[in-house]
């Protein structure tokens, strides 16, 4: 058994995490099957899997995932582009910052859940209102992190490039942009969660498809297992995007954790 212990030692963290999840799922299933046999109160993993297969066979999964994905990706991309744009503008121009700052602060602090019904009344139950709400969720972390990344650039590096005759333009592209990149990447990652919440909440308030629609419609019809399928899909989607961006972050700026 020595070799088993060795493998465990080498991968202790991963083994513990995977074991914890598997045990949790098994326990969940046991409690569901043996103690609480009421699908309204609790549905276990095997029932969720069953519901998933049914929905998949009817093409429902594809329809809902596609709808939410389109809302998410469009709102997110617009949010990223405008967030970076406004962040750069506010970092470079004192006037722009003074003018935009109150609006940014107000909009950032308004909860999405309050804005969602207003957007839907204004833009209808179609995709436009969803994109707008996802956008509101995504734009601020990107904006703030872009702004902070640019304004906290190391003055010593700027001076070094200036000492070798660097122009303002060269300083911006050779120092400011690369040094702001890691924080911007963090902003991209943080806005994923907010954007997904935006998409789901907007679907709760009125839609014909999407994972949020699936969850709310299934709960109302007491199809708890179907609702859980939606939750699991969201969890997987969010986790994957988050990890992908974290990986990209480490690839793009491996130096960041060592900076002085």
């Amino acid at each position, binding site marked *: 058994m020595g070799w088993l212990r060795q493998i465990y030692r080498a991968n202790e963290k991963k083994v513990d995490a995977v074991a914890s999840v598997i045990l949790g799922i098994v326990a969940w299933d046991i409690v569901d099957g043996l103690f609480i046999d009421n699908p309204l109160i609790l549905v276990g993993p095997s029932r969720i899997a069953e519901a998933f297969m049914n929905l998949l066979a009817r093409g429902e999964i594809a329809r809902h995932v596609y709808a939410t994905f389109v809302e998410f990706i469009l709102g997110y991309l617009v949010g990223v582009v405008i967030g970076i744009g406004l962040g750069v503008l506010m970092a470079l121009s004192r006037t722009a910052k003074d003018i935009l700052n109150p609006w940014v602060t107000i909009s950032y602090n308004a909860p999405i859940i309050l804005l969602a019904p207003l957007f839907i009344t204004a833009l209808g139950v179609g995709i436009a209102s969803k994109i707008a709400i996802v956008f509101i969720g995504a734009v601020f972390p990107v904006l703030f992190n872009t702004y902070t990344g640019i304004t906290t650039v*190391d003055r*010593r*590096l700027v*001076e*070094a*490039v*200036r*000492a*070798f*005759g*660097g*122009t303002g333009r*060269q300083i911006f592209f*050779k*120092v400011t942009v*690369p*040094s702001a*990149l890691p924080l911007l990447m963090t902003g991209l990652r943080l806005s994923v969660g907010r954007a997904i919440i935006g998409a789901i909440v907007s679907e709760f308030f009125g839609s014909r498809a999407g994972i949020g629609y699936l969850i709310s419609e299934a709960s109302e019809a007491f199809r708890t297992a179907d609702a859980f399928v939606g939750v699991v899909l969201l969890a997987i989607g969010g986790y994957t995007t988050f990890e992908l961006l974290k990986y990209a972050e480490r690839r793009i*700026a*491996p*130096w*960041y954790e*060592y*900076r*002085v």
Partner: protein
Amino acid sequence: METPASKLVVRNLRKAFRSQRSEESVQVFEDISLEVHPSEFISLVGPSGCGKTTFLRILDGLISHDDGEILLDGKTVIKPGPDKGFVFQDSSLLPWRTVMDNVILGLELQGVDTREARRKAGGYISLVGLAGFENHYPHELSGGMQQRVNLARALIVDPQVLLMDEPFASLDAQTREIMQAELLKMWNQTRKTVIFVTHQIEEAIFLSDRVVVFSARPATIREIVKVSIPRPRSLSVKRTKEFLDLADRVWSIIQDEVLKSMGREREEGMR
């Protein structure tokens, strides 16, 4: 007319800093004049806070001055550029660039083709003893090695004058001694004109042809001490009587200035 033998001429330089809160301005330099010969190694020492580093930044054109002129090869210095190489106290290397790409920075800013710049950089990386480390990132290097990159980055632009701002200040004592000896070796090979700011008197004497001693603020040149210890110098020269006598002399001038400025501060405090 200055003598044609001068590489760098500073004439009647004045500089005052206006403090942001009050209208009052603080005089930093009062009438500094200095002539530096080609291939000369000059050190600037003086009491802490006398403005040595500011002086160096003015020579580079990073900071403007109020009055007087600075001529490099007879041309007025207005702004930073490839005719001057600056070596900073903290290496200030770009952390996302490898050693190689940090070294070519100066050439790249001038618009030199990257491939050509890299070819040229190889020689300078070897010169500073970092061959084999071209693809390392700054965070993978020790403080001493980072300063070697810092030096190569300044040398590659083939500057007319090398301005060094306490480049070894953050190194430990042993590394510092080694770097001093290495710097002299490199200087022997390149024969650049060097202005070296330090607060370590023995470092100044060991490296230099002349040691310029600044007075307390507002700074003027208090004295220029000539070091005639023959070259090439090895580290053991630091233990000779001639060396120690020179160090004593420079130290007593600085001590004098420090006491004077303390007296002045006390007077101002009482007023």
